[in-house]
């Protein structure tokens, strides 16, 4: 199928539910096509979960949702081996993570132990329980949401785990028109539940393969590396972008180029993605500017 048309249909489908957030929707799709995971960070009630669900429903694939709570156990996520008396053996009951798209709601409410169970699955794309390894389905994507504020019973996501997310976006409050639109829509019931899938899991996998093949010129690769190095050398940061971040940025840039119906990556793609790919991994020094500010400053400084 035609890549651009498919991408466009997904964007439109999700856009039917999430009003006025085209950029966030596009980023979500780009992350999906880059085989990455998406972190949506915002205040409660702006549509984080709705976006995750809409994206998941637009693709005809298995979707699981996990509501993270402090008492959630790692085995709830990964699955557990249960003794079957009839066979006198252990039988593996897959956890919530066994799905193409996993919506991890309020991920920072779970204990670090549970979080790391999910994060291992994200990186390895497999789950090991009792010495046995179970591969996760492909494509596999985690869309996690979290509240930015220090709320009761939350745990901050450690740096190493934040690094696993390709991008972090925030939705922000809708503008006046979008909110009015939303009020009318919601009157008729939850729009997300009315969404029909527009592509299948196989289509998504094909699209991922296609995006992988997008050309990246040497100068663009060098630009990406220079940006990553600039974060490591920045006097305002305690921790810069990892090589994993560099790789994910390139993958995301390829996907964005593909979504924009282009066979090659432009530095503009990189410039557009850096603010969502880099900041959540960086650790700023106390008293300095925020990571977003530092990244913006680096973009103003590093020549293309």
């Amino acid at each position, binding site marked *: 199928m035609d890549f651009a048309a498919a991408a466009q249909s997904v964007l439109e489908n999700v856009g039917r539910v999430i009003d006025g957030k085209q950029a966030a929707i596009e980023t979500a799709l780009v992350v999906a096509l880059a085989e990455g995971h998406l972190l949506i960070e915002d205040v409660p009630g702006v549509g984080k979960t709705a976006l995750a669900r809409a994206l998941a429903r637009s693709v005809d694939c298995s979707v699981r949702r996990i509501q993270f709570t402090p008492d959630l156990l790692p085995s709830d996520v990964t699955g557990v081996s249960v003794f079957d008396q009839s066979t006198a053996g252990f039988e593996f009951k897959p956890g919530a993570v066994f799905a193409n798209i996993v919506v991890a709601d309020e991920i920072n409410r779970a204990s670090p132990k549970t979080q790391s169970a999910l994060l291992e699955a994200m990186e390895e794309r497999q789950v090991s329980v009792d010495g046995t390894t179970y591969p996760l389905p492909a494509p596999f994507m985690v869309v996690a949401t979290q509240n930015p504020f220090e709320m009761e019973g939350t745990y901050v996501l450690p740096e190493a785990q934040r690094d696993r997310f390709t991008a972090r976006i925030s939705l922000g409050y809708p503008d006046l028109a979008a909110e009015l639109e939303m009020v009318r829509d919601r009157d008729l019931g939850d729009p997300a539940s009315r969404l029909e899938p527009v592509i299948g899991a196989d289509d998504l996998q094909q699209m991922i393969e296609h995006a992988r093949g997008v050309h990246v*010129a040497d100068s663009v690769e060098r630009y990406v590396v220079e940006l990553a190095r600039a974060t490591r050398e920045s006097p305002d940061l305690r921790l810069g972008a990892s090589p994993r971040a560099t790789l994910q940025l390139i993958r995301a840039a390829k996907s964005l180029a593909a979504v924009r119906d282009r066979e090659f990556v432009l530095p503009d793609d990189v410039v557009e993605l850096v603010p969502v790919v880099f900041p959540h991994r960086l650790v700023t020094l106390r008293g300095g500017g925020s990571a977003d500010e530092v990244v913006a400053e680096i973009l103003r400084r590093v020549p293309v």
Partner: protein
Amino acid sequence: MTDLRSPAAARRDDLVDSCVVLVATIVLLGGFAGLFEGVRWALDVVSVLVPVTVVAAAVRLWSPTWATPFGALTAVLLVVWVFVPGTTVLGVPTRGSWRGLLELSEDARRVIVEEVAPITPPDSVVLVVTVAFVVVLVLADAVARQAWRVPLLGLLWATMLVVPSVIAMEIAPWWVFAGSAAAWLWLWWSDTRHVGVVPTGAAVLTAGGAVVAALALPLVGPEVRPTSSSLGVTETTVFGRGINPMIDLGRNLRRSDVRQVLTYTTESTEGVYLKAATLRQFTGRTWAPSPMLMSADSEGVEQVADDIEVETIRTTVRIDDLRSSYLPIPYPATRVEGLTGDWEWLIDGGTVRATGRTTTRDQDYVVQSLDRRPTAEQARRSRTSGRGLDAYRNLPASVPEVVVSTARRVTAGATTDYDRMLRLQDWLRSEFTYSVEAPVEGGYDGNGLDVMAEFLSERAGYCVHFASTLAVMGRVLDVPTRIAVGYAPGTRLRTSARDGSTFRVDSDDLHAWTEVHLQDIGWVPFDATPGIGTGTEFAEEERPDAPQDAESAAPAPDEPSEQSTLTPEDDAATTAQDAESSSTWRSVLPAVVLIGLLGAAPGGLRVLRRRRRWGSASSEAWWREVGDTARDLGIEPDPVETPRRFAARLVEHGADPAALDRLVLEVEHGRYARTAVVEPRVDEARRVVDTLSATAPRRVRWLARIMPRSLLP
């Protein structure tokens, strides 16, 4: 273009820049060496330039904003301290200081108008030169911190290079060109270094071309000749172009186009010498006027002893074609009537000079002068050692031995000053031949001491050589002498019983002769030039019926070349006018062309570069052209900008969006795609540049054309 230097490195570079500017300014000073004698003036100027640079550099370390004001303040104080030292109170300038400076500059203006380069500059002229160079230094020092410093300094320094050639008609020595060009290139190079950009091929080419041009210019520069006007001030009087008497004389005499300068009618039957200027000061290199007593009265005073026979002569002069600030009048004149404009009397020389913009052009006036007729006996009795005449006996120490010994040998046996001068005059008139060309061919043209020995052995020359040699020999013998410049009596046209004789004076009647001071008689002309006049000889007591003196000396019957008229009158007049305007052009043209070329060079380079890029088939070259055009128009590209973002900015500035999109697409394909599939279209690229230029304000557009910023790295 980002400055990547650390603050310390920037400070160090600032210091180096200051030094380079100082050195370049001092080198440019060398271009003026041809105008002035000696080196004292240069040391004076440098002694002001160096502290100004030091103060400005020191202040810059503390606050860049205040460097130029403090430098300028230092310059003002130093100028006051050096040139009007007595007028300050505890070093602070007072109103008297300004008055003193004004007086000095007024004096300088006079010297500049009247004197001929090279001169030994008086303080007043050194002041003017100092102020000019301090202004150039402070300006250059300030400009050297600006982004546009390379073209601005180039223009400033090129102007200073051209100034001496406009003034003295000589091109500055090659090392001045090379030195200032080197300083300029250094600044250019350091500009490229600061921003971490290697000079492009074009820059290297330009730089190399500039060096070659700088070195070649003095060699191929046209030999510039001063204007033709006989006693020539043109409307724009500048230094050394004033009366220019001694140097211009020979050139004017050698001119092929002769024109009628004036006609006069006189009661004297033999015609009169018309004196315009008096030269008293002999530097060894040339004769020059010196500051003289002035009077606004229209009457001169000449002391003549009572027992000497004197007759008053009335001469009516009509100027036909002469523009000069000096009025040709018979000597000694007692009264001048009928002049228009502002004139003043120079008492020492007995001459009349214009002030302000008045010139002799179209003047019509009547002069009363004295015809002194002493006897030879009275002349012999007259002592020459009067008071106040020491200035007329001054000689440089370097008088060649041959001049001294010849003077002594020729005058051996003569007992009075009158007889000595008579012998020298007659010896020169009889033993030497008149030739306008011989000195030029023999390489001893001029009136300095260095050529005098050559003249004495070649025994050929024209009025300048004879007058100068007689005057110097007179001074060797302790007789007060000076040089008069003016016109020989000319050609008689008619004689009427009622008005007297009418004479025509042509441009080649321009003449120089010697005046000798005899007490009781005054300044007596002695004309040592063979073939002109008959020389001075007062009547002996035995033959009182044949009095003859220089004022009434008749033109020689055998016509010397000086008085020959080669072309018909009216024809000569028109060609002379044409020649005058064309030769004025000839003298200014090289300077104008040089400034023009230097001014047009950046724009020309830019046009060439643009043409080359349009000619190439590469979108990348076109994109560079768009970037450079934007820079020229003040839209600075940012290295962190992607082509798209830069293009978006250009659209805001009026570039055609569709054409720009197309060009950006080509560029992006060329740079980032696996294979470029977009066909390059130069018309779209040109459209981008055209629309971008068209929407810029007119002033910006002109600046972009004349001083394209994109030539800077």
